[in-house]
């Protein structure tokens, strides 16, 4: 085996895992109720893929392959623990032969269930952020700990405490409906916002901006028609478009007027403008996204539409911005 196929296989595993991890974990949590088991089985499926795919080739449906392996692994573990037959029966229903588990409505709902449970207001905000990164994004505990400047054991304890609270307090694994959805959604968006802005790598760059953008896209796809979800995604895209221009060669932060605007990511800005156009209402994220759009589309600091920015800030100040960050 040469290095090139190995690298290609690693890429295939990485591509499949980005998409499959949350689906697998979310489905296994629904069926088994065991968060740690779900994460372990998803992780083992990815490890097995790295061992098998170089020899056997990447399967036609990598996500389905990973889901099947993870599900079988969960069956093994539960069988050894001899849990009740009901859970086993449920796990065994979508049989090995199932070629493509992804279109099932249930699977889509599972990821949304997982997001709303990880972001439940009965959990502390820091626990919500950590749990979202670990369980939905599959980020290693050590990496989360490093980005939030705590020891790995502290982060492990934080995650364990959060999972224990979910079980002990009876936090449901459910997407809220009706008026409850509108009540809970800002809390979910606040977690995504924190994820985008509060974790940093050793080089000072945002650690989880890509994960936040991916989750915002997923949320927009799973619960369409929510203006603030689209606005938050647009805000992320505008801010992320400046990622390569934000620092000089020595790594010092550059203010807007010193940045080389040619290095801003035009594709991200265009996409952000397109998405922001979906939301006519003045929610807190829509206003912030419009401010970011003014900067993103200006040729220079002088050419920036400052009156429009001031108007957005006035509106923001009137809608109590601190209410949605708590």
């Amino acid at each position, binding site marked *: 085996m040469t290095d090139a196929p190995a690298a290609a296989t690693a890429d295939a595993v990485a591509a499949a895992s980005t998409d499959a991890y949350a689906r697998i974990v979310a489905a296994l949590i629904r069926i088994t109720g065991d968060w740690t088991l779900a994460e372990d089985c998803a992780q083992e499926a990815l490890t097995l893929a790295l061992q098998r795919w170089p020899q056997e080739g990447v399967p036609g449906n990598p996500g389905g392959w990973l889901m099947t392996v993870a599900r079988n692994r969960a069956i093994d573990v539960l069988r050894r623990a001899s849990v009740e037959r009901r859970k086993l029966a449920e796990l065994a229903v979508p049989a090995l032969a199932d070629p493509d588990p992804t279109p099932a409505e249930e699977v889509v709902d599972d990821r949304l269930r997982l997001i709303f449970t990880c972001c*439940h207001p*009965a959990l502390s905000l820091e626990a919500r952020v950590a749990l979202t990164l670990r369980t939905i994004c599959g980020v290693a505990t050590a990496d989360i700990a490093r980005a939030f400047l705590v020891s790995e054991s502290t982060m492990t304890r934080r995650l364990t405490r959060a999972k224990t609270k979910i079980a*002990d*307090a*009876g936090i*449901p694994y459910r997407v809220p409906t009706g008026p*409850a959805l509108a009540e809970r959604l800002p809390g979910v968006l606040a977690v995504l916002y924190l994820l985008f802005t509060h974790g940093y790598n050793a080089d000072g760059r945002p650690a989880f901006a890509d994960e936040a953008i991916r989750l915002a896209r997923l949320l927009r796809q799973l619960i369409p028609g929510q203006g603030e979800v689209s606005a938050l995604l647009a805000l992320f895209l505008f801010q992320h478009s400046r990622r390569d221009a934000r620092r000089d060669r020595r790594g010092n932060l550059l203010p807007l007027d010193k940045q080389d605007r040619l290095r801003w990511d035009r594709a991200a800005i265009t996409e952000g403008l397109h998405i922001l156009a979906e939301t006519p209402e003045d929610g807190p994220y829509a206003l912030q996204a419009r401010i970011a759009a003014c900067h993103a589309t200006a040729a220079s600091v002088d050419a920036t539409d400052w009156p429009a920015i001031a108007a957005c800030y006035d509106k923001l100040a009137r809608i109590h911005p601190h209410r949605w960050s708590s």
Partner: protein
Amino acid sequence: MKYMMFVCTDTEPDTDKADEPDIDVWVSENDTRGRRLEGSALASTSAATTVRVRNGRLLVSDGPFAETKEVIVGYDLLECADLDEAIEVARAHPMARAGRLELRPLIDLND
């Protein structure tokens, strides 16, 4: 799941007096729906007695175990499907505004 709902005072009650819920309506509604198993107001902390045993000796003292501004003034034992249902029951209680409510799941020792 069973939840003990502690009804507590709070130093910063809600100032918005619109649509204040009625405790009798709350009790009868949740009793009817089987979500409130029992509950009661408590006498003031001046009637409280604290009991401890240390090295085999009984120590009985006056008052609650800690002097705090926020005190438990009542309780309700709830039976709810999950925390979200318990939160809905709690939010409709008048003391959610005038004070605060703490939801604590009961541990089933037969589990």
